[in-house]
């Protein structure tokens, strides 16, 4: 197992150096390396962790009412919302959620793809449709966001070092006073959890950005925690299935190892 230690060593080394960098940046104001993400606990951590259904449903609401204005989630389809291991809306709920969103329609019976005003024909989404992107293309997205491109969120938790904690830290990392000597670029916002500390995204969440139907108090932290849970699921929708399968696989393998160990001992009994 020598080489396994090697790779673990790399990981430890990485973690150690990341910690060093973090302390350094707190001391030298002009080192704008991002802060280490906040240590938050999530229901989906650990070998038996699952997604909190309530958090997923609330998180979807935050995504839909806040994030979706600028960010797409193109790998998600509406039927995913009703699948096991996800927010587990009922099929009727998912259908209704889909229908509340318009997606580009195919050509009509006369072959037109635009209406009389030259606007693209739209239709209500169905379960089979993927989440629509808020902008028709990258150029439009940049033009609407001061030159910055809001990333697609369907893989954001897996695509960032620090994962869910990073996303949570960014969402709750606004509204702080920049250290003396640090200049916030015009049109950008101070967020020390973002590399370079200047982020193009305006603070997306505020208290009561959304009104939760289950009575949960919509603080910034609550909203961030919920939407991060939702985005973690969006990145890894099969996580619960994976952990459950893994438990069975490992149990089987351990029993099998026991059987083979007994056979091994018996076969070799007289040979050494």
């Amino acid at each position, binding site marked *: *197992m020598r*080489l396994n230690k*090697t*790779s673990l060593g790399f990981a430890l080394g990485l973690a150690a150096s990341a910690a060093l960098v973090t302390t350094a940046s707190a001391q030298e104001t002009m080192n704008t390396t991002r802060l280490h993400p906040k240590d938050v606990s999530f229901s989906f951590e650990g070998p038996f962790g699952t997604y909190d259904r309530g958090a997923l449903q609330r998180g979807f609401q935050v995504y839909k009412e806040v994030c979706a204005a600028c960010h797409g989630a193109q*790998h998600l389809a509406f039927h995913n919302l009703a699948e096991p291991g996800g927010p587990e809306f009922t099929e009727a709920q998912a259908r209704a959620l889909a229908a509340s969103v318009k997606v580009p329609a195919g050509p009509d019976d006369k072959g037109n793809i635009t209406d009389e005003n030259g606007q693209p024909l739209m239709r209500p989404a169905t379960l089979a449709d993927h989440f629509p992107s808020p902008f028709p293309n990258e150029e439009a997205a940049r033009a609407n966001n001061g030159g910055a491109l809001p990333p697609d969120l369907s893989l954001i938790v897996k695509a960032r070092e620090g994962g869910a904690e990073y996303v949570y830290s960014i969402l709750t990392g606004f509204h702080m006073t920049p250290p003396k000597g640090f200049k916030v670029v015009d049109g950008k916002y101070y967020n020390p959890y973002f590399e370079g500390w200047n982020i193009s995204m305006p603070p997306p969440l505020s208290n009561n950005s959304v009104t939760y139907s289950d009575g949960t108090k919509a603080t910034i932290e609550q909203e961030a925690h919920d939407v991060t849970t939702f985005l973690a699921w969006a990145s890894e929708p099969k996580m619960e299935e994976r952990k459950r399968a893994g438990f069975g696989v490992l149990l089987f393998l351990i029993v099998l190892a026991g059987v083979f160990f007994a056979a091994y001992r018996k076969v070799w009994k*007289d040979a050494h």
Partner: protein
Amino acid sequence: MSGPSTYNPQSGFEKWIDTRLPLPRLLHDTVHTFPTPRNLNIWYTFGGILAFCLGVQIVTGIVLAMHYVANANLAFDSVESIMRDVNYGWMIRYVHANGASMFFLAVYIHMFRGLYYGSYKAPRELIWIIGVLIYLLMMATAFFGYVLPWGQMSFWGATVITNLFSAIPVVGGHIATWLWGDFAVGDATLNRFFSLHYLLPFIIAGVVVLHIWALHVPGNNNPLGIDVKSPQDTVPFHPYYTVKDAFYLILFVILFAVFVFYAPNFFGNPDNYQQANPLVTPPDIVPEWYLLPFYAMLRSIPNKLMGVIVMGGAIVTLVFIPWLDTSRVRSCRFRPLMKQFFWAFLVACVILGYCGSQSVDATIVGIPLVWVARICSLYYYAFFWLILPIVGLIETPKKLPASIAQSVLGDAAATPAE
């Protein structure tokens, strides 16, 4: 495969087959009665484990190829579709992705084991050299495979590695263009890499047959590094080593499963979950962990061409080991001096890997890592080209046991093996 066959066809059908295509005889002699030293330890189970890894990669790879689309605009989405829409697609892909890491983990243990016990020494030079060829093919295959998901690290890794060829004077630029099939890494590159990624594993499988064939001529080396002298020194491969290999294989698969089901992205890089974008260069381009030591060598040399030569030379060097080692004793167990250099070599490789994983300007306790990498690269070369020849000449090895049987069973080793 060699030596007198002990196969004795029983039924008429077996006799009929045996006189036409003696495949049952081959299998019987190879995996059943093959006389194997009775003292092989855990480190000798990795050959079988590697065959298993190759099989897993081929089977999962073929299934993935049924769903994957080799097109620069569609590849990334097709991989996500495998993860989300294909039944158990996430499992097949995670097995394949982690399988590459497990394959290299096993091959490194296998190679260090060969190095420690002198398994490359006469008459096993060709086994070792064929093994180096397999290792090279594995690296190429893994590199091509890493490009296929068409994430940021796929794209930029491919750009960095293919650009190495442009360091060759005069024709380098043309070679790079020829490799890309374009003037930069793009759709044409992705398509040929997919084609090669599908082809090479079957070539590896063919070369593995040669590896095992060459192994079955002199038979296994063993931890004592002494030759088999009598039948008492050996046991038949089956059931002794089939059961031992199977047991350790299961332990290995348990480790494999822990990664697949509980830390599937442990070996991965988050950047590869972002689609390739030729306009955005990631701050640090890092290859997969199993290539990091060579990457560290490359980066530690300021001159690009020299860096490429040093990196390539590190692998080519392996081919010459059988003749660089001047010792008459195979196993480091009886080489007190060489043993220390061996462990230092292992540590140097690990440190090189660490250096390769860090950014270019990183330091450790105030020492620039680039210098740490230089010293370790120097030791890597010195180990093979100076230490191996010289220590073999000046070292006084410990006394070798008279036979394997005597060492395992004690002096009263008169009872023949069952």
